[in-house]
């Protein structure tokens, strides 16, 4: 039996959003662009399209990746689809004054070129309303500190895929301590070989096992920091 063709523009809002979750899951870039435009044309705010259609859909992808149902290529295709929707929304979000959650500087550590996880985190953080400065790959402690001083973010995110490179995160954190700037920032770490114990041992604020956890942890810790400052 042939697949029934779904005309996105004929779906009511609630069904269209669910269809976009499916399309995001299947990595269908063109359909995500189309769905994004339809919702905007129907008067949705860019923020609602982003959170309800894209971020919520990507959360399902992230959960299934965590549970071993999806693997790297499927997640990359979904991320590409989400990115195409975000490209439409980004300028509109800036114009419509969507809520800003905070600012993050992120990059993979020195000697590590594996950036798939880091890119996903950066994208999901942006989707959650954080301003993200992505330093890319292979970052020395000097480069991290320079970015912290220049950008004054709330959060520093460090990523590593290799057992041999993950100890460099401690070098960065120790240098921040030496310079008396550790407490000025929330430090989040992530990457396949890391775990909570490692995060604690090197003095990070939290280990985040995936992009969704990174977003939730960032929101909580930024809120806590703001509460402390205003207390």
């Amino acid at each position, binding site marked *: 039996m042939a697949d029934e063709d779904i005309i996105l523009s004929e779906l009511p809002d609630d069904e269209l959003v669910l269809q976009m979750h499916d399309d995001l899951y299947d990595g269908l870039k063109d359909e995500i662009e189309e769905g994004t435009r339809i919702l905007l044309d129907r008067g949705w705010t860019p923020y609602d399209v982003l959170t309800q259609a894209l971020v919520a859909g990507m959360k399902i992808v992230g959960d299934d990746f965590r549970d071993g149902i999806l693997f790297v*290529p499927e997640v990359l295709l979904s991320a590409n689809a989400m990115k195409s929707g975000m490209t439409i929304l980004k300028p509109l979000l800036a114009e419509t004054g969507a809520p800003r959650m905070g600012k993050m500087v992120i990059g993979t550590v020195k000697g590590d070129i594996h950036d798939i996880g880091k890119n996903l985190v950066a994208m999901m953080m942006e989707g959650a309303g954080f301003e993200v400065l992505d330093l890319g*790959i292979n970052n020395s402690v000097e480069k991290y500190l320079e970015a912290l001083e220049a950008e004054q973010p709330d959060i520093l995110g460090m990523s590593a895929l290799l057992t041999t490179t993950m100890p460099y995160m401690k070098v960065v954190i120790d240098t921040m301590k030496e310079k008396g700037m550790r407490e000025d920032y929330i430090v989040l770490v992530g990457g396949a070989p890391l775990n909570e114990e490692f995060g604690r041992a090197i003095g990070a604020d939290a280990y985040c096992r995936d992009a969704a956890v990174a977003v939730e942890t960032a929101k909580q810790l930024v809120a806590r920091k703001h509460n402390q400052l205003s207390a």
Partner: protein
Amino acid sequence: MTADPLPVDEVLTGGGLAPEGAGRILLIACGALAREILDLKRANGWDHLDLQCLPANLHLWPDRITLAVEAAVKEHRAAYDRIFVVYADCGTGGLLAAKCAELGVEMVEGPHCYSFFEGNEAFAERDEFTAFYLTDFLVRQFDAFVWRPMGLDRHPELRDMIFGNYEKLVYQAQTEDPALDAKARDCADRLGLAYERRFTGYGDLTGALARLR
């Protein structure tokens, strides 16, 4: 007398190899190392070493390696004087080493097989972080281990998202085999990377197993 047939790569990738022999020491190894270990056993007459291999494709989910090794140690420890784990850290972030220490078994030193095949010291000195490595096993199993799991058979457009930060493919050759050399070169072409062949032999693996008496 004919030598035992070599284990089939596809079996080593997804299934593994049950322990065989009457040795006092059991090697619990990654399936990707089966041929090399069996070759060393034969060449050195190490009949005191039995070999069990876990599926090589556990490397696609490194967090499952520690649990699989722990289960194998617990299953077989009563039947052997000693167990040696032929895995390096292999992306477990120190969890495998911690589990082996807790279980009272030793393991191979180093971050991964690329390191111990070259020799851990020499590998660390290279600091060659833009190289993507293949061993003999991985060249033979390139499609099962790299091409298909990374979705490149279905979505070739993902290649540069996954491999774009690498500069070259280094084939660490355990054996002299022109056919594998040619295949490795083809793998490099498919990934869009420069190619280098580097003969390593078995590196630190030989010494690690020779010490088991």
